[in-house]
């Protein structure tokens, strides 16, 4: 009887402790004191962009903006990089690039630089931000924080005079989450079009497909990321790009999102052989740029 009481007490203590969640796995960020941009070591995970296609320091600017945390009523300074001429934002085409889950925006500077080659080098401007908790940005990453950081980026663009009819949003992997959310629910600044590369459908979909047991995702995480549901509220035309052999976020995720988008003028680019992060290399930089450019211009 005594053992039973001890065991029951231990169970109650465990049960009443602060709940453990796996949310942190979604945000494997790394803090930085200084960005390296084109000097970052891309040998582990980069796309193999040639030096000639990288943005050079005379053509990019590190900027900061304020992201407001509505839950804790706190403001964070987050960092971004603008590739292009900031003095002509009002008349330029701008691509807001929302990067994936890893490390910080240094690790995505090659991808952002690649987009700065659309239609010729520096033809379009590219604006990339680090979410809170990433790189030099203050705070800690949360699902709500992604949306608020997306808002901060849009506010910054508005402050610089950007034209919503010339602003496109490109979300890669995790970046698809704020891209879809802001495209769906930000009414004062509608992206002209959105581009999603390797997006996930939802945390529930990942949990169900990974465990096969139909387990509630709430058992292990507080994250939802309901992209395939929110995309129903997006009116901006969509280009969806996904590797057929993606073994991290399987292409089924993107199919759900693409299928749920209400617009009729969508484009799907299913890339055979490509995995999660190697689409530009597999398809080839020229073809990749041509596909994105065609979508932007048509």
């Amino acid at each position: 009887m005594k053992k039973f009481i001890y065991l029951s007490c231990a169970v109650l203590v465990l049960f009443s402790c602060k709940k453990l969640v796996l949310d942190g796995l979604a945000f494997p960020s790394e803090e930085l004191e200084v960005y390296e941009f084109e000097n970052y070591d891309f040998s582990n995970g980069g796309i193999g962009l040639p030096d000639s296609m990288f943005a050079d320091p005379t053509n990019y600017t590190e900027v900061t903006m304020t992201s407001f945390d509505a839950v804790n009523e706190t403001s964070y300074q987050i960092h971004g990089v603008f590739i292009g001429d900031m003095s002509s934002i009002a008349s330029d085409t701008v691509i807001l690039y929302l990067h994936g889950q890893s490390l910080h925006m240094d690790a995505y500077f090659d991808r952002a630089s690649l987009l700065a080659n659309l239609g010729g080098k520096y033809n379009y401007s590219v604006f990339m931000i680090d979410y809170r908790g990433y790189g030099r940005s203050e705070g800690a990453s949360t699902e709500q924080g992604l949306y608020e950081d997306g808002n901060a980026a849009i506010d910054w663009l508005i402050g610089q005079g950007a034209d919503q009819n010339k602003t496109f949003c490109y979300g890669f992997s995790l970046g698809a989450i704020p891209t879809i959310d802001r495209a769906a629910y930000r009414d004062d600044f509608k992206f002209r079009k959105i581009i999603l590369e390797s997006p996930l459908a939802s945390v529930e979909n990942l949990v169900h497909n990974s465990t096969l047991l139909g387990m509630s995702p709430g058992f292990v995480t507080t994250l939802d990321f309901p992209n395939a549901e929110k995309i129903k509220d997006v009116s901006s035309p969509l280009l969806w790009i996904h590797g057929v052999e993606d073994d991290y976020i399987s292409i089924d995720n993107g199919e759900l999102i693409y299928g749920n988008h209400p617009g009729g003028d969508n484009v799907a680019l299913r890339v055979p052989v490509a995995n999660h992060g190697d689409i530009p290399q597999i398809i080839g930089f020229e073809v990749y740029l041509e596909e994105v450019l065609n979508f932007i211009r048509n």
Partner: protein
Amino acid sequence: MGGNFGGPVIDFAGAPIPVPLTAVEVGYGLDSNLTVHGGLHTTSLLFGVGQIDFGATYKFLEQKKYFPNLSASLGGNVAYSPSEKAVEFWPTLDVNAYWNYGKRDSYFYVGVNNYFVLQSRMAFDQPQNQRMIFNPQMGHVFKPKSGGYQFFTELKFIAPYLDSDKAFVPYKSIFGTNGATGFYLGFRKLLGSKK
């Protein structure tokens, strides 16, 4: 009474490790052929989820030389999250063949563990095509000379017929990109045993 540790092996920062699932377990022999048992999943408690498994194991064939003992275990696994207000239930069925050896009846076993999924739909109303998860398993139970302890190791081949290459969780499997390999360790202390 006892405890166990282990789960599907995953790639963690380049190293294959079993998911550290833990449980405490109790069992009671109603007679020499029938045992009822249950387990409390302590790792789940850390996630704010109360999870137990329960079942009854019946030995329906006795070992005759090389022909093994045969047993079947019918049970279930229940998980409840107060914060989610969600309950999940998975019926289970195990069938095992085991061979006793030595003076203290240590044994090897091979068998299958089956999980049944009651939900017919998954996220976004996708059909649940895997209503039964079939997991072959093999293990060994060692009974040392004194102390009334049993120590067991088990290798489970989780859904080896399903492609796991594109699963979000980086499962490792001895079958390459099919299923996942589970590895488990545990012990039991026999209480009130006459042996």
